[in-house]
């Protein structure tokens, strides 16, 4: 070609090759889920906004997309549920182990834009991990927001993430925490039922609320429905979606959902912009 199209444009650092990060701390959350704190062997810490993700590499095993789950002003933190070869290898990584990190990729939750509103955070299962940074962000500047609610559901009490932190948050007067489980086990005295049900009972002013939702797709659909029923405007409900991802950089094609590429246009979406596609089976 006569001209060389943007071949000189900079490639984002870490877009292709993983940067080595050492596991500084590891903490078991549940039977199959661990939280890892990572620090770079060299160079600047990784700055990621709430809702963004990295591609996390276990040496010789493989690489998967994982959301940041820590405070965006602190070190890189990931919470990982072991469901297959790569996530199992990551969860087995004791302090000192070196993992590879590419990114951050994707668009963040719209926190910081809509100050003054009530904030409703609805999470299902591991979906609390990508939302925890939002909570840190909001609590650090609590005055800027109206009411803040965290509604969280898991399958059983044993699957609850960040249990001691939730306890602490539950004790705050400026934060409403609702937790529910699909099926109770002995000793559970909390609520039983699916998360969308918590939406009906939570106190917030629907007309001036922003809702952030993450969990299994079905849970997000029902939650969005409950929020809409309460009167939350469709354009103020946000969800984070998940598809297979190989590159994170918009080049591999795997994360398509209809007209969008999740790594490029998501993973955080305004619900009304993706609802129609998310509801077509197998799209």
């Amino acid at each position, binding site marked *: 070609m*006569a001209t060389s199209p943007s071949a000189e444009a900079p490639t984002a650092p870490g877009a292709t090759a993983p940067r080595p990060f050492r596991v500084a701390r590891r903490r078991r959350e549940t039977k199959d889920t661990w939280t890892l704190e990572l620090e770079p062997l060299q160079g600047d810490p990784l700055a990621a906004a709430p809702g963004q993700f990295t591609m996390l590499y276990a040496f010789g095993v493989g690489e998967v997309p994982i959301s940041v789950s820590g405070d965006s002003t602190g070190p890189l933190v990931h919470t990982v549920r072991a469901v297959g070869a790569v996530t199992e290898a990551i969860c087995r990584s004791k302090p000192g182990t070196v993992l590879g990190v590419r990114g951050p990729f994707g668009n963040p939750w719209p926190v910081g834009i809509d100050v003054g509103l009530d904030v409703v955070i609805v999470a299902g299962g591991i979906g609390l991990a990508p939302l925890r940074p939002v909570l840190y962000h909001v609590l650090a500047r609590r005055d800027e927001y109206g009411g803040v609610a965290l509604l969280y559901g898991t399958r059983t009490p044993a699957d609850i993430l960040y249990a001691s932190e939730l306890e602490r948050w539950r004790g705050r007067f400026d934060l409403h925490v609702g937790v529910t489980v699909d099926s109770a086990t002995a000793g559970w005295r909390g609520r039983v039922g699916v998360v969308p049900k918590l939406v009906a009972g939570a106190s917030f002013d629907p007309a001036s609320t922003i809702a952030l939702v993450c969990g299994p797709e079905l849970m997000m659909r029902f939650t969005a429905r409950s929020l809409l029923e309460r009167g939350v405007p469709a354009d103020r409900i946000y969800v984070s979606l998940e598809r297979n991802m190989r590159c994170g950089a918009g080049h591999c094609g795997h994360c398509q959902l209809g007209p969008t590429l999740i790594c490029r246009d998501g993973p955080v979406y305004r619900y009304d912009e993706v609802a129609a596609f998310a509801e077509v089976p197998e799209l």
Partner: protein
Amino acid sequence: MIEPETLEALVVALRNRGYRVLGPTVREGAIVYDDVGSAAELPVGWTDSQDAGSYRLERRDDEARFGYAVGPHSWKQFLLPPRVRLWQAKRRNGGFEVEEEPLDDAPLAFLGVRSCELHAIAIQDTVFLEGRHVERDYAARRKDAFVVAVNCFEPGGACFCVSMGTGPKVGAGYDLALTEILEGGHRLLVEVGSERGGEVLDELPRSAPEDADLEGAERAVSGAATRMGRTLDATDLHGVLARNLEHERWDDVAERCLTCGNCTMVCPTCFCTSIEDVSDLAGESAERVRAWDSCFSLDYSHIHGGSVRRSGRSRYRQWLTHKFGTWHDQFGTSGCVGCGRCITWCPVGIDVTEELAAIRSNKEANDGDD
């Protein structure tokens, strides 16, 4: 104007400038793109006869160098090679060190690029060079590529570039463009598209074109436009497909489609890749390979709990709606350039132009575009 024999001087001129010259050549019953050491390796006197599910080489009764349409290869073979190692890593001090693969930026010269293929390259440029992240391997290979385009005078039985607005006449994006003229003496018109293209032409023995040459060239290309093997009504395909995600034609085509992925491999714009992470047995070194992937595989959409697109129906729908519909949303153009490869190389002869026509014939779809 240059003589057909002067193509040898063109190959030499490009090689002398340090280019790896790639062009059409006959291998195992097909015209493929490969290194050409000499213009004698071009498919002199060959043509390809193409139809849905069939491809055959045939002798021409002339010595045309570019008297065929397109084969199973496209230039993506060289800009986005089927397998590329991205990096290697070695364990060190309890951690590991990653070494990115040195970039292969040996300058390439493509000899014999069709108009549809120029459009396909531009489409992949958009994907790899114009987003938030630049694909460094593609960028390195693409950067200095020298393009010798050719105007088509012998379209194939599966071609429909006229319907897609991508040919047969070469528009922009070339260094040199050739038009092969057969009537009234075998010769080629050369047009210059860049400064370095002009410099290369200056080195070749040539004559100034006369009116008869220009008219002959014009007739050759305009004739091709009237002999397309296929046509497609491309009006608002984006909208037609978006409105028909549950059309019964998806069930019908799913009965025929083998989900083999051939169509995605031969398509010059299909860009999907996967990564393969491997390590040695001792776990001391590892590497990552980027390899072509296809939306027809089950793994492609695998997430924990199973694949998103389990049925063949949903995978065919993904391919067709992406190519002709959502590509517009994602990259601002159609993902199809009308080259016909997917039609020719489909083992069961599935024809995208037929499938799209069937979907459009739905009443509902027609409501949107009268």
